[in-house]
């Protein structure tokens, strides 16, 4: 039912069969991509041990692949890519700032605690 005092945005998301077809095609592409990335991760994880010289490189490639997967899930599956720019920023920017800080402080403190444990032990 239409109201004149507010806009029912829920009704704006409707689309027809033709648009649906292109959306489904996009979903299929993203599915294949996510599956391929996961398979690659498992193969690398099973065959390259942490003692390997390549480990630092492997670790960072895991993190990058994870971020790529996360971006596709958020932007395509959760439709954040189709929302207004203002909404996208309200969701992503505060989160990104806070997490960047938390990761920094977590690793920094862990390194300090680790070296303190090595020096004094317990």
């Amino acid at each position: 039912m239409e109201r004149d005092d507010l806009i029912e945005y829920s009704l704006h998301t409707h689309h027809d069969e033709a648009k649906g077809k292109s959306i489904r095609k996009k979903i299929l592409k993203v599915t294949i991509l996510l599956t391929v990335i996961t398979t690659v991760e498992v193969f690398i994880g099973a065959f390259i041990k942490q003692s390997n010289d390549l480990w630092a490189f492997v670790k960072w490639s895991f993190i990058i692949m994870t971020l790529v997967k996360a971006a596709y899930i958020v932007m395509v599956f959760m439709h954040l890519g189709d929302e207004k720019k203002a909404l996208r920023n309200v969701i992503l920017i505060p989160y990104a700032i806070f997490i960047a800080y938390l990761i920094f402080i977590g690793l920094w403190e862990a390194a300090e605690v680790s070296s303190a444990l090595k020096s004094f032990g317990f």
Partner: protein
Amino acid sequence: MAGHTTQLDAKTLWGGKESPFQTSYGKLMMWFFLVSDALTFSGLLIAYGFTRHDAQDAWPIGEETFNSMPFLGHGYPLLYVALMTFILIVSSVTMVLAVEAGHRMDRKGVTNWMIATIIGGFFFVGSQAWEWSHFIHGSEFGKIELADGSQAIVKGHFGEIKNFTVIEAGKHHKVGEVMKDDLMHEFQHAAEKGHLEGGNIHFADGTVAKINKAKDHEMKLIIKKSGAKHEIGGTPITGAAAEKVYYEALYSGEANRVVYGANMKQNEYGPQQYAQFFFFITGFHGFHVFSGVMINIIILLGVLAGTYHKRGHYEMVEKTGLYWHFVDLVWVFVFTFFYLI
């Protein structure tokens, strides 16, 4: 400001009709909830990273800990958890297809894709239950404390225990009797209590029996705590040398030399915090999946009753979809930081 008025019209004053985000209230609130939930999970994973950074080499490695498959035994590093990840991704895809069908007001499509999503969710929760059970019961070898005080986890194929032959009679058993029931359980229980001595098992009723056990294969000891002789990060002890030190410790007759599985006090995989993080993070995520499945079922009932069709839009499916994708999103990170790195 007496005598002064300002003319207001719809152009200069926000009339309240249009939303700056051009989205509905419900969807916006779901997004805000998800941001706060994401912060909770991030906090947990960063705490995990912090603790792990402290422990360094003693921390267990994913492919060493999680290498079993249901019905197939072990030797399949990360395969099961990869399968779980795949199941969750697929159920996320079926959910987004349900949302897409909702945008076309295709009630039958929404119903079918929702059912597929719920089945995927149950599969995932079931897989996690199996994984927890496996983690709690642990391996056949357990973690062993060697004679020099170092601790090692053990890989390889455990030779089957065939039977116990009684060599000293007790209250309930005669000499020469052959026990065939519940051998593994009795064996591990006795090992923890220090009731294994020189290849014999001692029971509470005074019975002593000889353990008839097949030979182990490809045994490998990986040191997780340094002792007088063996250091963390050194080359693993293998073959006959491994069997010698392992059984020396296991058959020493001392209690608490071996740990099987995991609980809140100790675990066979590594530092104590490892199991606690495992239980808390995967448990918290599993609880999200479980509640997600329940919410999906409630929404499916609404779809079947035609509630949303009458309303003119399937936004409820979209909102639960957001939550369901979020659960998948969290798992992507748990998978990387808990299992891969």
